[in-house]
């Protein structure tokens, strides 16, 4: 069995990008959309086929084999035995990601056909989507950390291009710029981490079997590098991993690098669903999962720092989400919070005797599971939001309310997705979130309770959103002018498909996810811990009930009262605790205002001034000695005479 056809999973979207990008001008919207979607359909089929083949293949020692169908040296480096490879690597999480990405991407392709109908730049939109899909697939199929970085940058650019798709609108341009620069800043950490890692381990590869040997100084021929290896094992490797995590934190919107994600909602909503909910933003989680063997073996303490960062982010984002009025913003903060759940799940893993163990590292599986389920239901939520925005022409909740009668399909799918994210059985989110909570309790009960609390907050704000849109106070006046209507089938079908996945994936295959993806690679049977699950269900139901009580009515006296009682808290939460303003201050006032401006001034006036001074000095000196050449013959004669006299005197004395 070989997987050489997997190369087409990368090549097809790339060619689709080239064709749509270069020839898009001469294609009709319809042709371009169908072409892009068809190509993606083929990619999806290939991905499913790959998954089928991969997971049905025999295990070796109870572990799915890591396969490398392609790997070649793309860019050789000439020192330290390093080289930059490109290739394709297949292991369980890669294959899982292939399914996630291709599924969501295909849904978004189909959905966009309706959502983006008649938009200017339709072909360009599909070209970008293709490029993004290619980059994201390349990212997850990377054979080495540098290839990952390369595609990481590419998805960043795609994200930039797609957020700024409506480039004539200033907020979209600003948001795209912000997204790119913040993630780029984080990627600096990633890059430096890679450089450290590469230098001290002598490889960029994800094949960690050599790394261990190298770090222990036992690799043949590296005796001279023993000191390097010691340093690497003790301090450098955790540092390098943490720096890489900084990159991941940027992409996955961990506090304090999350600020770009809410703004990224300026992009078209399907893009938000694909990039900023389901796929690209989980790249950070994927990266930590990819480097997990190293984390757990060499840097478990640092991994726990990651967990706490995740926990704080989850709490912060949930708190902010409770106060937002823009539905996409709520979903964005919800995404941040959920990704932070995944990060926590990875962070709470414990090494068992210094090595990976399925039970101690339950969080790894939980995290990947949640990644999978979250991608589906969050994509649903975003696509529903897209339908609503499409119908109402606004993002603000005040223009909505009572939408359930206009948009039944959207309503149902949205509700199911909300139940899933709140962790209500039998929907998929329950199973994955439960595993995360179990893992958190396994690490420490404090962490466990914190995460349970945040899960309750999740349920609360999601139902606040749900009621705000579909129940609550209807903006009757507005709806009379623009009567909302259900979206066309091309938009609702993806919703229904994704919802089906959300509904079924948890209970049809209970416990089977662990047999595909787990920390050690050996099959791990998930069994629900009902003490944890029960608690979380109860708390979630209470939170939902609370939200129902406060927000479901036509009049919402309690909500008004709460707003009035804690005006400062509400205001701060609404303004996201003014973090954006802090960043704005630091970047504009300090970096640009102080450093850049003073450098530019220094350059023009001091450095350049110095050279101008040299020129001026030469000029002034010339002017001053110029008077000697007065052009007056008598003066010349006088000087000549004096000269002659002096010469004579010198001769006779």
């Amino acid at each position, binding site marked *: 069995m070989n997987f050489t056809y997997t190369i087409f999973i990368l090549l097809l979207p790339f060619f689709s990008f080239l064709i749509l990008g270069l020839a898009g001008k001469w294609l009709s919207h319809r042709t371009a959309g169908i072409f892009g979607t068809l190509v993606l359909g083929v990619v999806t089929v290939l991905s499913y086929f790959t998954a089928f083949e991969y997971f049905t293949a025999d295990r070796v020692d109870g572990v799915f084999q890591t396969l490398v169908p392609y790997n070649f*040296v*793309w*860019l*050789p*480096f*000439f*020192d*330290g035995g*390093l080289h*930059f490879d490109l290739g394709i690597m297949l292991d369980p999480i890669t294959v899982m990601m292939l399914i996630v990405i291709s599924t969501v991407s295909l849904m978004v392709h189909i959905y966009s056909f309706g959502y983006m109908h008649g938009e200017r730049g339709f072909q360009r939109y599909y070209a970008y989507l293709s490029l993004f899909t290619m980059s994201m697939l390349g990212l997850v199929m990377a054979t080495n950390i*540098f290839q990952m970085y*390369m*595609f990481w*940058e*590419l998805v960043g*650019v795609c994200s*930039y291009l797609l957020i*700024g798709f409506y*480039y*004539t609108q*200033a907020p979209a*341009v*600003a948001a*795209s*710029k912000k997204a*790119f*620069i913040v993630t*780029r*800043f984080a*990627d*600096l950490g990633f*890059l*430096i981490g890679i*450089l*450290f890692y*590469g*230098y001290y381990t002598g490889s960029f590869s994800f094949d960690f079997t050599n790394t261990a040997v190298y770090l222990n100084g036992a690799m043949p021929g590296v005796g001279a590098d023993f000191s*390097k290896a010691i340093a690497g094992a003790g301090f450098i490797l955790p540092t390098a991993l943490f720096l890489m995590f900084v990159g991941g934190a940027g992409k996955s919107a961990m506090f304090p690098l999350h600020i770009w994600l809410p703004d990224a909602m300026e992009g078209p909503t399907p893009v938000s669903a694909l990039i900023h909910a389901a796929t690209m933003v989980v790249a950070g989680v994927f990266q930590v999962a990819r480097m997990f063997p190293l984390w757990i073996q060499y840097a478990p303490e640092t991994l726990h720092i990651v967990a706490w960062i995740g926990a704080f982010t989850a709490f912060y984002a949930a708190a902010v989400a409770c106060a937002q009025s823009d539905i996409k913003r709520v979903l964005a903060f919800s995404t941040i919070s959920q990704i932070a759940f995944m990060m926590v799940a990875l962070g709470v893993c414990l090494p068992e005797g210094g090595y990976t163990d399925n039970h101690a590292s339950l969080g790894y599986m939980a995290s990947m599971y949640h990644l999978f389920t979250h991608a589906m239901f969050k994509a649903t939520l975003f696509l529903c939001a897209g339908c609503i925005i499409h119908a109402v022409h606004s993002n603000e909740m005040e223009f909505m309310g009572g939408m359930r009668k206009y948009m039944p399909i959207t309503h149902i799918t949205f509700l199911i997705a909300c139940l899933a994210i709140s962790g209500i059985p039998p929907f998929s989110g329950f199973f994955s979130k439960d595993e995360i909570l179990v893992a958190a309790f396994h690490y420490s009960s404090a962490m466990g309770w914190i995460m349970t609390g945040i899960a309750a907050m999740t349920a609360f704000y999601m139902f606040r959103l749900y009621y705000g849109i579909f129940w609550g106070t209807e903006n009757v006046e507005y709806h009379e002018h623009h009567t909302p209507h259900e979206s066309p089938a091309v938009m609702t079908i993806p919703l229904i498909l994704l919802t089906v996945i959300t509904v079924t994936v948890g209970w049809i295959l209970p416990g089977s996810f662990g047999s595909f993806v787990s920390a050690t690679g050996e099959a791990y049977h998930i069994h629900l811990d009902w003490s944890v699950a029960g608690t979380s269900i109860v708390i979630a139901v209470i939170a939902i009930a609370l939200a129902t009580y406060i927000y479901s009515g036509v009049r919402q006296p309690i909500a008004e009262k709460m707003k009035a009682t804690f005006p400062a808290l509400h205001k701060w939460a609404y303004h996201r605790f003014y973090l954006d303003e802090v960043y704005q201050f630091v970047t504009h006032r300090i*970096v*640009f205002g102080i*450093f*850049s*401006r003073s*450098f*530019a001034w220094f*350059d023009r006036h001091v*450095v*350049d001034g*110095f*050279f*101008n001074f040299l*020129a001026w000095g030469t000029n002034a000196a010339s002017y001053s000695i110029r008077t000697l050449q007065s052009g007056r013959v008598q003066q010349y004669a006088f000087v000549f005479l004096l000269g002659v006299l002096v010469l004579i005197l010198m001769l006779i004395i």
Partner: protein
Amino acid sequence: MNFLSLFVLIPLLMLLSLWLVKGTKGIRAVMVVGSSALLALSIYLTFAFLAERAAGNTAEMLYTASFTWFEPLHISYSVGVDGISVAMLLLSGVIVFTGTFVSWDMCKEYFLWFTLLSMGVFGFFISIDLFMMFMFYEIALIPMYLLIGVWGSGHKEYSAMKLTLMLMGASAFLMLGIFGIFYGAGGQTFNLLDIASHTGGATLIEFSQQCIWFPFVFVGFGVLGAMFPFHTWSPDGHASAPTAVSMLHAGVLMKLGGYGCFRVAIYLLPDAANELSWIFLILTGTGVVYGALSACVQTDLKYLNAYSSVSHCGMVLFAILMLTSTASTGAILQMLSHGLMTALFFAVIGMIYHRAHTRDIRELNGLMRIIPFLSVGFAIAGLANLGLPGLSGFVAEMTIFVGAFQNADLFHRVLTIAACTSIVVAAVYILRMVGKILYGTNVNPDHAKLHDAHWEERLAIIVLIACIAGIGLAPSWLSNMIDASVSPVMEQIQAVASTVSKSNPFL
């Protein structure tokens, strides 16, 4: 007759024909034929060179030829190429070719100087005689003055004067350095290879002598390579120069600096390079960050790109001074990459300026809707500039960083990490510029009816983008070719690398 000399002969023939022909058509015909011939020659050279190497010819320089030009001073006309020169010749060929199309409407005298400049550049890269290198360097310099001073814009006389004076000042340093090397090596030969290998009457240059001449040579070439703090000619010069001259200048002429630093300063004075590199590392490292930060607040497109060039060219010298094989390879790649993308940048900026009559970022808006082709070219140039994977900048920068990280001490580490930050700052200024001028909606009615690129402009832009993407997608052949030629220099360095710089207070 060695076929490398064609690189000098073709421009000479072009000069002659330009002098003889009349009318715009004739001039264009001569220029297109000539520059295509140069491009074809450089592509042929690349293939021939690779074939020769593949056939097992491991001589350091291929196609060498030499004849004595002035016996008493041992000056000879010596030519030869290695992988680095081949890469540079290819770059020059591409830039001259595209530059011709970009300056399509220019007059005869302009093209005469333009061709003379090209001749100097090509001559520089094929020379392996120090004196001839210097001479071609000077040949390349003088036309610049006239091209900027006559056909420029803005404060053109001031800029032209400043540029020429600073580069002339640098060449004074350089001349001292070259004579220092010549006499330090026994005063018998100007030939690079002989001096490096102590043959042909050359002797080992004493350490104390090397330490004297290294700063002269490095600063001499470094000024041309926009080394901080000798970079100030670059913003003014580029801002005033006509489009194709900016392209040629930033794309090729600034590469003379990096190439010279590597070929002369590092290669011939390895001990001093090892000893004194720290001073210049601090300067170039500062320049990398400083140029990038300064670019953030510029309002003139050309100034912005000029400061960005200061940053990127600073990276070239920075990488060279890291004295590792990878970093040096990266430096050469960066020269190629920067040459191409900055040429593209200047070309598009020039075209926009030609249409909109302003380069002020604050006055341009929403060009994407009006002139989509140019805007896309501009955006691609910007993305290449900030190191998008798949375009050339990424390849070069990554090679440099990996190479720079091979120096394990804290001093080099800190500087490398500082240099890495420039790629973030690059994203800031590029996106700021792209966001301001391409995106948004146009508010200036004068700009509403601008026409998009003509065919000749499209050709130039497409060729440059193709080259950028070509390097970005398939870098390894280039990287291997360059590295094979970097290794002789690195052998010189390896011989002395074990001694730690005594003068460096940070070690």
